[in-house]
């Protein structure tokens, strides 16, 4: 097995991006059985806006903020404008969010063109560094750090705060939460918005490594779905673990049998679904 420091760094940095895209999807899914197939679009818009802002302002930090903010705005528009009307109507949710994904892809192609765009990492993280005897890209290492910090922050918010208890209780039993005087729709709206923000941040952070182009959205969307299925609905810890597993499997297989990498990830998801339908760390099945 070609496991070495370099492929670990590449895999884990990819895991950071996958976590950012999938955690919102997972919690929103767990909370209201809500399928958002425009998750990849939020990543895409985050990446494109970050690219433009970075070119204009020359500030990577500003680009990150702008990318996250753009996805937040798009997320709120989707939630306020459409999804609020489609509670409990899964088929319509799938059709609608898929339609939104196509529209976003066309509009972004119209604005930014069809060629892949890449952002240069910020000056401090450019080039490479030595880690455990291997030479690895500095920005990839930074991504791992950023992903870890954000994962801990999201975990803390959901597992250790009162607001997080509302969300967890909502994933368990939404009706009962409402009977205790809590406005479930407001919780859902906030979770959806936060998830969109993280997607956009992921898109912005990912632009230096994955680049951004028409199709990036679909690729990330599919990977995020696998992460959610694998980790278990509504579980932050599950999203963390599954992001790492999916990213590492994808990276490892890619290095010794590139054509099979996508197949390997789906085969893994299928296997977990057969053995453990509720996902690695999920509590309830489908």
């Amino acid at each position: 097995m070609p496991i070495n420091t370099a492929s670990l760094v590449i895999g884990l940095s990819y895991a950071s991006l996958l976590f950012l895209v999938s955690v919102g999807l997972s919690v929103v899914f767990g909370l209201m059985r809500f399928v958002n197939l425009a998750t990849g679009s939020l990543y895409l818009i985050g990446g494109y806006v970050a690219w433009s802002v970075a070119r204009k302002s020359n500030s990577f930090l500003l680009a990150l903020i702008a990318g996250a903010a753009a996805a937040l705005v798009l997320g709120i528009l989707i939630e306020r404008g459409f999804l609020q009307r489609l509670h409990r109507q899964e088929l319509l949710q799938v059709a609608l969010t898929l339609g939104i994904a196509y529209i976003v892809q066309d509009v972004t192609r119209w604005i930014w063109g069809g060629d892949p765009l890449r952002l240069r990492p910020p000056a401090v993280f450019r080039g490479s560094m030595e880690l455990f005897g291997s030479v690895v890209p500095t920005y990839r290492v930074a991504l791992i750090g950023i992903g870890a910090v954000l994962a801990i922050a999201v975990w803390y918010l959901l597992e250790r705060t009162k607001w997080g208890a509302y969300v967890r209780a909502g994933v368990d039993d939404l009706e009962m939460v409402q009977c205790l005087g809590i406005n479930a729709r407001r919780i859902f709206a906030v979770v959806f918005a936060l998830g969109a923000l993280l997607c956009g941040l992921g898109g912005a952070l990912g632009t230096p490594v994955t680049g951004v182009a028409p199709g990036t959205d679909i690729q990330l969307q599919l990977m995020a779905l696998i992460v959610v299925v694998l980790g278990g609905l509504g579980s932050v810890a599950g999203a963390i673990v599954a992001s790492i597993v999916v990213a590492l499997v994808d990276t490892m297989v890619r290095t010794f049998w590139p054509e099979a990498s996508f197949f390997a990830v789906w085969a893994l998801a299928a296997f977990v679904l057969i053995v453990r339908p509720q996902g690695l760390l999920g509590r309830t099945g489908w």
Partner: protein
Amino acid sequence: MLELRDVYGGYGEGFVLNGISLRVEEGQAVGLLGRNGAGKTTTMRAIMGLLPRVAGDIRLRGESLVGLPPHVICSKGITLVPQGRRIFPSLTVTENLLLGARQPRPDQRVRWTVDEIYELFPILKERGKIRGTLLSGGEQQMLTIARSLMTQPLVLLCDEPSEGLAPVMVQRVGEILQRIKRAGLSILLAEQNLDLALSVIDVAYIVEEGRIIWHGPKEELLANRDLQETYLGLRVEV
């Protein structure tokens, strides 16, 4: 305090409730009795705003509740102790207890502080840090009652609190409900366990096929063997 007038309701086509009328006065405990499937739980769900279709009048202190979402109905002073307890498995005992905690209304007579709740249910303090569903069935029933009290209700809807509990725990639930009633809270209690119900309630309503077919003071129900056998399918040994 709480009044239902001619309430019809159901989940899809057709009605489960076919004209329910009942009153719960302030500080009164009212029993909603009847067989499985008679419409007790559906009545509770109608009051709580959980039924997709409701027609008729449901009023709390004169204010209509029909059409309001459950969280608003809760904030007006009604809360549900649900059938099957429905403790949140991802939450600790303390998180379960405090999830819906709120300040009492200014004009509210019966109020609950966390300290009073812990005095009433010491086990919830001792075992606060473990997951709620790791409690025993009886302890979970205590937790779901306590959790509802923390929302500072004016009326407590209590759906089959004895279900699935050992006899000694059923008795304990009865004592708790009696204490809550003595504190002055209004209670609507749906029960199949007639002994438990009679130890708590003042007035009984008997439901059959979504209608109230009899109501009166509990003494009358106790004296009426026919009623007990025909509609409740059981009898109280006096």
